[in-house]
């Protein structure tokens, strides 16, 4: 019995160290398992990542707003509002800011993983989100110029960007 109680206390102590998350790490490498989780958390609580170096794989995506301004983003396809697999599909990621030219997005209109994949490192620029107003899509995938929707993305300052030749192990569509 003493052994059991000691074991119980030891387990509780261990869990209490990381029972509510892995938030103590300063830098984050987003893997296939943690991409969605960390990306949504960054959207929710960007302040706690401002000092962290982030590293992740994504594909480049050009978002053109209603004023014809184009934003190059690093994203993956996801479900609506960062998490619900019950809504409309959308993308999750960052607006990319880089001193160097970023690889051009390709095959953007096709709903598959044949995209320009990159490995990025860098930091969040700030906790402020950039709101990009785009024309909404109809159910058939065509653009509806009469309706707009707003995408809010954090800005990511790219420190390094490497092209990924073989993205076969990377998930185009991420869910929890």
């Amino acid at each position: 019995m003493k052994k059991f109680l000691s074991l119980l206390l030891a387990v509780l102590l261990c869990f209490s160290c990381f029972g509510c998350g892995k938030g103590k790490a300063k830098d984050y490498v987003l893997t296939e398992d943690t991409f969605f989780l960390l990306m949504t958390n960054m959207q929710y609580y960007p302040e706690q990542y401002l000092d962290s170096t982030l590293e992740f794989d994504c594909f480049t995506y050009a978002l053109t707003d209603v004023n014809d301004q184009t934003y190059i983003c690093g994203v993956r396809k996801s479900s609506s509002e960062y998490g619900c697999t019950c809504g409309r599909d959308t993308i999750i990621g960052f607006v990319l800011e880089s001193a160097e030219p970023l690889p051009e997005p390709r095959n953007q209109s096709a709903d598959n993983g044949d995209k320009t994949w990159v490995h990025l490192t860098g930091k969040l620029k700030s906790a402020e989100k950039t709101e990009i107003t785009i024309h909404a899509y109809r159910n058939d995938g065509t653009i509806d110029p009469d309706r707009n929707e707003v995408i809010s993305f954090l800005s990511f300052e790219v420190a390094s960007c490497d092209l990924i030749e073989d993205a076969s192990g990377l998930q185009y569509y991420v869910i929890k």
Partner: protein
Amino acid sequence: MAKNQSAGAAPGQSKKLRSHAAAMAKLTPFPRISFIVYIILCVVALLPWLCIYNTDIPGIEIKVSGWNAFFCGLTGKLTTPGGIFGNMDTFNYFAPDACKPLALYGLLAYAFLIAALILNGVMLSKKAQVLHLPAAVLGIGAAIFSVLGFSAADSVNNSNILVEYCQSNPACSVESYAIFTAIILLVAVIFNVIGAVKFFKAQSLLK
């Protein structure tokens, strides 16, 4: 020498002692049963105290388990991702007013539950049946905080989580199974209460 004195001193006293010993012997199963129920409760704590249930998936889309609520209350970290046994961070983003009390009640409920488990363990190993009453009190405390946790989880319905996170999808709903913790706790408490009553009755036989 002492044995001879006791045997020969008072037949009435000896009868009392035998009755007391018999009554105490009947108490043996109670701490064992309540201890097992508390162990079961540690597993039940993996059930969601708060979750988004989505019939489109179907199943639980995202959850905060009893252990997650406990550890979030213990560490005060409600915004870190990838918590063990749950994701308080997502719920906290949409419903912080509900998640803070949920974490507090989770902490208190499982602190009481663990204390009750330890008391029952001590009772089992030391045969200290006198601990039935404090164990019952701790169990009742844990049940009360579980009910409060259920109430806090239910208040998440007042937030905009279903509108924003689920895009008002009717397939989504906010659920909580914290009430099961309270119900099962009452089973453990009943055994502790019966044990306490029988213990005090057994003690009264000595008077």
